């Protein structure tokens, strides 16, 4: 992703009065956020299939890169890897009720390490960290119902 593409995203945000913009494509996750942490904004342009003509202000697709690019917008640090739920179910922070949580804020985790369990149809699905790093945020509470794509954890990857 180059500076021109970032500028286009910033224009898009300003023109559409967006406070937060997140894009994930080809292994690249980019999140831009204006001001202090807002609620998740549903007016985010999702990447669309080829052949579909989006509104003129849509950003160009970023070229594939492996690591998230650190950017600063209005003083905010945005180089976080967001772990989202791949399924619908109930979120549990620990293997059993009363047991220690898999991952706490501030804890260092490794790629593949279990962060939580999501129960769906009586099956326990383990959700793993996608990179090495430090858990900086947990978005959901123990026992909360989660949907596909729901944000679970934010990890600051160690370079």
């Amino acid at each position, binding site marked *: 992703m180059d500076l021109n593409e970032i500028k286009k995203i910033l224009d898009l945000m300003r023109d559409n009065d967006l406070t937060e913009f997140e894009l994930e494509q080809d292994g690249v996750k980019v999140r831009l956020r204006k001001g202090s942490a807002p609620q998740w904004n549903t007016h985010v342009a*999702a990447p*669309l*299939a080829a*052949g579909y003509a989006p509104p003129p202000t849509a950003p160009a697709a970023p070229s594939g890169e492996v690591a998230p690019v650190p950017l600063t917008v209005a003083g905010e640090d945005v180089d976080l890897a967001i772990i989202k739920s791949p399924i*619908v179910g109930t979120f549990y922070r620990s293997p059993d009720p009363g047991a220690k949580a898999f991952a706490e804020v501030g804890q260092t985790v490794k790629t593949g390490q279990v962060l939580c369990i999501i129960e769906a*149809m009586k099956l326990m699905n383990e959700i793993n960290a996608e990179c090495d790093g430090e858990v900086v945020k947990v978005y959901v509470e123990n026992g909360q119902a989660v949907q*596909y794509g*729901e944000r679970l954890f934010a990890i600051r990857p160690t370079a």
Partner: protein
Amino acid sequence: MFKKILIANRGEIALRIIHACRELGIKTVAVYSEADENSLHVRFADEDVCIGPPRSAESYLNVPAIISAAEITGADAIHPGYGFLSESAYLAEVCEACHIRFIGPDPSVIKLLGDKARAKKAMKKAGVPMLPGSDGPVTDEEQALKVVKDIGFPIIVKAVAGGGGRGMRIVRSAGELSHALRTAQREAEAAFGNGDVYIEKYLESPRHIEFQIIGDHHGNVVHLGERECSIQRRHQKLIEEAPSPALSDKIRKKMGSTVVDAAKAVQYTNAGTFEFLMDRDGKFYYMETNTRLQVEHPVTEMVTGIDIVKEQIRIAAGERLSFKQSEVTFTGHSIECRVNAEDPDTFAPSPGVIHAFSTPGGPGVRVDTFAHSECTVTPYYDSMIAKIIVHGRDRQEAIARMKRTLDMTVIEGIRTSVPLHLKILNEADFVSGRLSTSFMDRFMPQPKKSKLADTA
């Protein structure tokens, strides 16, 4: 009665189910893919759960995601709509196992009628008129001639393993038979790895007539009359109407009671549609049964005054049908146009953002749609964006009403099939009711080489 229903579908039919649920005081749960985040069915449901990315296989066809969504919201029933998982015996079985009511027939009935061979056998046994043919593969001319002796020409030779128009040959006289058999067998072998062919009676320009039935869990089954769906292109219906201009009251009663008997014979419950082809002599031939609500159910609702979706919900909740056959009356005439997001001439899909969306009101007009100004029509799902339905005192008024409604419908930003619908409605053959499944041929580009060529 259910407290909460999860709608395992999207678009206009999800809204249709929400209409019924709201009127019955039942809470609704919408499920949606990421592409439908801002869709109306999500906005108007009481709760919503994102179940996957845009691809249908990972979202609207994703049984675990849908069941999980029902579990986390505490839904006690699932309405599958049409398409997607509506005829999935698997979903129905999983619902049963998870103590969630599936609003539709039993999984065993879905399986029986979903299997074309088993369905035909069961329907034949129940006295439903069938398309005559060879009972199994035909290997040589001698065997074929025996079959033809019973059923007469024209016949069609079809691949047992086939589809898509390949391994098929129409035969109109004995002289063509041998050659047709051999070429069909060769084509079938090449296309499907199985050269077996069978013979079926071939109907010249038949009419597509289907009967709506509905049954409760107390043994009551009623038919709600027929719909004519002959205006179709490549087996995709474009315009449907009720009643059929080709049926008399006498035929309606006779065929109606035939399908009711057939439904009872297989212990059919909830809504279903028996599809037939009718030949020029007015004879009916069974095609298949759709064990679900149909897209074109509104035309039946308009002429009978019955809310089929509400009845589905009531039946699934264990209630008796709220009316008897003798109480079902047919008033006036209804026509439905399926508005698709596609080029009216080339049929190329036309996704995009709708900038202006306006449909007229006035007497006898009903619009079932999820589209609105500034909504996005995505390329991931089928192209139907709205159903425009009219009701009139008679067919003539219904046609006039549909024409003025389409003329006053504004959809800007994408191309739609509205101009094509207007062309159809202005055809003399349509106005005089001379319909058949070959009606749309006049709007097709002439094929350079037809796969279904005569062998003459």
